[in-house]
């Protein structure tokens, strides 16, 4: 399938503009099912033309939140504003949102074109208008030659495209996507992710996507909200979420990470490098750590030190300075991922640290192997102090 490259992704950050009016606003939303609290006093703003992801494990309330926006559920408390309009009591069939269902929910007794035309017919559009829009949508998802097929005669990927076309046909103000790519194989999923971004960009719509797949959320989103147990843990851009998670939960949920429990030994606030944040000193079971980070901790505080494996350098040679940001251990396991190798290094106290190394040269036998005594080192800006 030919990939259109589309316009270059623009710099887009309305959330940093204090004057920007949110397009969708969840205001102190609580949703209870009996005693179970699915969403707990949640407030969230989403801006026009944003590609926003709700990311979290199953049961974290992300789908409930989306279903409340679509109108399938009513919040127990709080309200949802769409373009400033209170959506309370507005039934789904009167909301300017459309949803792409996880199961696609294609009407099995209708052909592809009838499925796509369904929403347009409800709006009472004229027949030629409907036909034109259906054709446009079929073209958009590259299914022109499948117009007369029934959903049962399509592959999983094609069905997913029909579902997308159907939910886009009405040009909704907000498109809701519930685990849209879950059923696709990896390659198709990646292709579709980029196509989704293209489509969102071309049509200028606001997309809200629910997913448990962090890679998917990272790829497509302008911003991500990481959810757990009905509350939002962090809302930020993919890069911020990855590089500056605000809690152990977010750090652990997104990507691969080492987390060491530490005690703060000093927060003198002195800068070692000009133009960089001050340095916080930590100790984790004899391991001295220095982190460049502005953070309100004092000596004796218990914190977490989080560090992505690709920021750890692994070497067979002993570094010159072993007093700080250095650990010694032996290679306990190696995960060969093709582009990367992950080394699980067992420290002397039994803890495991993960270090990733890009496989830059074409070697089958890597110089570092099982049982090797290795040194791990990392710079001052590699890790992060987590107080939550």
């Amino acid at each position, binding site marked *: 399938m030919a990939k259109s490259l589309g316009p270059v992704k623009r710099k887009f950050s309305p959330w940093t503009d204090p004057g920007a009016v949110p397009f969708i606003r969840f205001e102190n939303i609580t949703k209870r099912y009996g005693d179970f609290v699915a969403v707990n006093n949640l407030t969230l703003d989403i801006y026009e033309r944003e590609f926003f992801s709700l990311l979290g494990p199953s049961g974290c309330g992300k789908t409930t939140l989306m279903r409340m926006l*679509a*109108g*399938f559920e009513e919040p127990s408390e709080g309200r949802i504003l769409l373009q400033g309009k209170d959506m309370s009591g507005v*039934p*789904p*069939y*009167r909301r300017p*949102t*459309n*949803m792409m*269902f996880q*199961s696609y*929910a*294609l*009407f*099995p*007794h209708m052909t592809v074109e009838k499925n796509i035309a*369904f*929403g347009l017919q*409800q*709006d009472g559009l004229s027949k030629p208008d409907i036909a034109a829009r259906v054709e446009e949508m079929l073209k958009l998802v590259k299914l022109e030659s499948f117009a007369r097929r029934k959903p049962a005669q399509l592959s999983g990927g094609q069905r997913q495209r029909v579902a997308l076309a*159907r*939910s886009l046909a*009405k040009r909704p103000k907000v498109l809701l996507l519930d685990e849209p790519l879950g059923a696709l194989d990896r390659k198709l999923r990646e292709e579709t992710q980029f196509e989704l971004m293209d489509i969102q960009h071309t049509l200028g719509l606001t997309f809200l996507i629910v997913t448990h797949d962090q890679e998917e959320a990272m790829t497509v989103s302008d911003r991500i909200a990481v959810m757990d147990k009905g509350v939002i843990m962090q809302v930020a851009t993919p890069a911020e979420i990855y590089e500056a998670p605000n809690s152990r939960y977010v750090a652990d949920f997104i990507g691969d990470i080492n987390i060491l429990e530490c005690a703060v030994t000093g927060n003198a606030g002195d800068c070692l490098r000009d133009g960089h944040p001050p340095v916080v000193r930590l100790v984790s079971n004899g391991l001295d750590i220095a982190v460049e980070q502005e953070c309100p901790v004092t000596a004796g505080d218990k914190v977490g030190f989080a560090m992505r494996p690709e920021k750890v350098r692994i070497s067979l040679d002993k570094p010159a300075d072993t007093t700080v940001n250095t650990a010694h251990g032996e290679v306990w396991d190696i995960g060969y991922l093709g582009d990367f190798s992950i080394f699980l290094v067992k420290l002397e106290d039994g803890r495991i640290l993960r270090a990733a190394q890009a496989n830059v040269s074409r070697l089958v036998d890597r110089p570092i192997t099982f049982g090797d005594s290795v040194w791990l080192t990392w710079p001052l800006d590699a890790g992060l102090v987590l107080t939550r």
Partner: protein
Amino acid sequence: MAETGATAHTNPLRWLVVAIPYLWLFLFFAAPFFIIFKISLSDTAIAMPPYTPTFEGFGAIGDFFSQLDFENYGFLGEDPLYIDAYLSSLRIALISTLLLLLVGYPMALAMARAQASIRPTLMMMVILPFWTSFLIRVYAWIGILKPEGLLTLLFQTIGLMGPDDQVTIFRTDYAVFIGIVYSYLPFMVLPLYAALEKMDGTLLEAASDLGCPPWKAFWKITFPLSLPGVIAGALICFIPITGEFVIPDLLGGAETLMIGKTLWTEFFGNRDWPLASAVAVLLLLALVVPIVIFQNQQQKVG
């Protein structure tokens, strides 16, 4: 696939499995049908069995065949009683089936949309009447519908009727419709329920999401998807109702004309087996058409 096909061909057990239903159909459908068909071509006789010719061995086979004719079928065409009875049966079956759909569809829909935990109970309630004999249940309706019956008593008690008035449903077509709808309701509800229950609820959410209000979604999504159940239920009811004998006999009046009753009278009242057989053969042929439609529909769905 080709491999399993090859081994299956050489496996005699496979042929046995296939042969059993055919043997069953031959013994209990084809053979009796041909006997009935043969009797319908015979003439009545005061004898035992009450028709002629009877099969006297292969020696006299030419003579045997020469005595068979379509005289009875001609007679059925001449006497308007039979044509009227056929048409009346089809009319009653058609109206009953529509009434059954009207009553059964909401029931099946309510069952399918009920909480999963109470569905077995609702199903039980639909099937429960089967635990009592069909005849007893129809007789019970006599007790309810007869002029001095329970319905009259109820209407008089609540003041809808004067003490001298009586309901005049018993021995009319209305009583027949009531009896048929009551007796056949489970046969309508169960296929409808089966079709509605397996429907994916998110389809209705999708319809609603695309701007379709619930009542419209029913006709655009729910009903079309339940069509196999509607057709199955309609045929399962329509076919036996057409030949129904007990209900019109017990609840219907003198003017309730149904082919099943006519057939019974010919067999047991008039002892005219050949004519009764001709009626039966035509009844079967009249019903083959809806059965074939049913089969086609099932294959399409499958």
